[in-house]
């Protein structure tokens, strides 16, 4: 029922919408980075859209993306990551309370240029979730008034949810003085 949203978006912004997809009942719109702010503002203020509720912000790291054939029909046609295509995909999920439809805005970012406009000024609910995405993936949200680590301690180096950060690489803050060896 949210297919209307995608068509309206394409009608209104045309080439700013790189791709639209409808998977498992979710509407996904991949937006150009510099057009993101206008698209988001329009989605929030337009009466027919009325996307007033922020749901979540996260990022997908495509470093290890190597889909294998599994029984059943795969809904994602994204090929294996070849090292050239944009590595990160930042996703904002929005929901409209009045019309009960939902959309997920996505912006694709290359590996070395991880700046993206922040949507916190539009929905304050994204303030902490953008900080969490910065903390975990290292995505810099331009325009976020207080972008710093939220879960990890400031002395932590690196972004743990990236695929190349090993799961058990600890950076201990304090250890017992009489303890030998690194844990």
């Amino acid at each position, binding site marked *: 029922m949210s297919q209307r949203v995608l068509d309206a978006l394409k009608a209104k912004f045309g080439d700013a919408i790189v791709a639209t997809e409808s998977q498992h009942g979710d509407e996904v719109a991949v937006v150009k980075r510099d057009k993101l702010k206008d698209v988001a503002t329009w989605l929030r203020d337009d009466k027919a859209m009325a996307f007033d509720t922020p749901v979540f912000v996260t990022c997908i790291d495509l*470093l*290890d993306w*190597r889909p*294998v*054939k599994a*029984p059943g029909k795969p809904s994602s046609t994204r090929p294996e990551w070849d*090292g050239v295509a944009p590595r990160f995909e930042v996703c904002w999920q929005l929901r409209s309370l009045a019309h009960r439809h939902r959309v997920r805005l996505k912006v694709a970012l290359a590996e070395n240029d991880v700046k993206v406009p922040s949507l916190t000024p539009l929905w304050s609910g994204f303030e902490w979730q953008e900080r969490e995405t910065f903390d975990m993936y290292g995505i810099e949200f331009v325009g976020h008034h207080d972008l710093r680590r939220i879960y990890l301690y400031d002395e932590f180096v690196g972004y743990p949810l990236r695929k*190349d950060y090993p799961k058990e690489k600890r950076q201990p803050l304090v250890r017992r003085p009489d303890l030998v060896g690194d844990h």
Partner: protein
Amino acid sequence: MSDPAPTTPPPAPDTVTLTIDGTSVTVPKGTNVLEAARTLGIDISAFCYHPGLSIAACCRQCLVSVEKNPKLQPSCQQTAAEGMVVRTTDPQSTLARKQMLEFTLVNHPIDCPICDKAGECTLQKLYFDHDNANSRVDTPKVHKPKVVDLGPHIVLDAERCILCTRCIRVCDEVAGQHQLEMIHRGDHEELTTAPGERLDNPYSLNTVDVCPVGALTSKDFRFTMRAWELEATPSVCHGCATGCNVEIHHKNDRAWRLVPRLNAEVNGHWMCDEGRFTYHELREGRLAAPVVDGLPSSWDKALRVAGEKLGAAQKAGTLAVALSAQASNEDNFALARLAAAWKAQVFWTARPHRPERADDRLRDADVNPNTNGVKAISGGALSTANDAAGLESAIAAGKVKALVTLGYDLPVSEAGQRQLREIDVVALSSHDRGHVKQAAVALPIAAWAETAGSVTNRDGKLQRTHAAFPPPGQAVAGWEAVVRLAGATGTKLTWAHTRDVWKDMTAAVAPWKGAPWGREVRPLQLRFAGSRG
């Protein structure tokens, strides 16, 4: 069926166009229907078919229905013909494949929890994908011998064997020695060695790789590690100059086995047994900390002592450098570049050839993986004059007072050993063996499986290796040790990553100009790749 649109150009003479499940595909003449289906992404189940072996068509697992043909055809044997129409998803052929699996499983022992192949077993994979139904047979299973010692490296479990004869064909075609046969008939048929033979040909462990089930297991890898816990890193075997492409299977910073990796030009699907056991030396006798006069010490103390010793000799012009045909191109190139900066004499060492192991297949007499690499790097300046014997005579003649060696096999005679003790030797080595024990300063470097790099095989082909796990202790990559050594003796080398060394190397060495560094390959977790079977 969609007829090819008339506007497409007529297919080239030596290709064939056929339709599989409604989609038409053009393949070179002579490919079988199974390979044609695989190019379309249709995965037809198969046991006895192996792209590197002849066609036996004895497992009947790949039956498909071909139009105008009353019986189901084995797609591995059926060569694609012009205009042929094949259906793989019609009820008759899917039922046939399903029942074939049921038939194969009738006498199969319930060994999955203790079977080494579990996790990468083709029978498991095909049953779970295609059949997934209970068996209608409840007669007791036929029992066969469970532990048969076939040869020095392989144990057979006859109950698990599904009689696909891949191993027999490997011995006949790859090793060229007929050592395995089937005896008895019906459900008592069993694999055994040919009369008077044992499975001891130099390519015997390839049978373990191609065995789709856990019938043939390698004594070296048996019961050590579960298949899905391993991580695979592509590399090149360092056993001899052939440079077979391999995959290092490792876990917890330790290599557990080497498995051949497909490379049509160099080694196809195969590798020799001796090459498979080269991973053992990654564990024994490693040098993990710098050693000065026999006592382990820190990097900066070792570099300081090396700097003094080499500095004096360099002024006197009696400094020499020994490249190594065992080390990678990057390490050799870094040392050669440093030798040029020092204006030192350049020698090269290599393990002596073993002509008795050479055969016309994969095994080569030259047991050094990088002989051509060292030759290319030194631009032909190396000859018999400055190999190990030349070095020995130079030392005797007093022309060499200080020596920087790469690697640990300096094959000098008894007299040479004594002279080596008089001069100052700085050894860059991954192992604490040979002359490294008496060296004045020993600097630990990473072995071949621990750094990204490249080697050149006997045909001059430049092949990349990737790092499977980090080097032990304070060891660093060979070229990085050379950079530190350069810093200790006042010369400056500005490499920060193997990529930079590669860039300078491919620029300097003519035959490798413009070779791409390629993408940094990260260890692939086998469990993520589904079952490898």
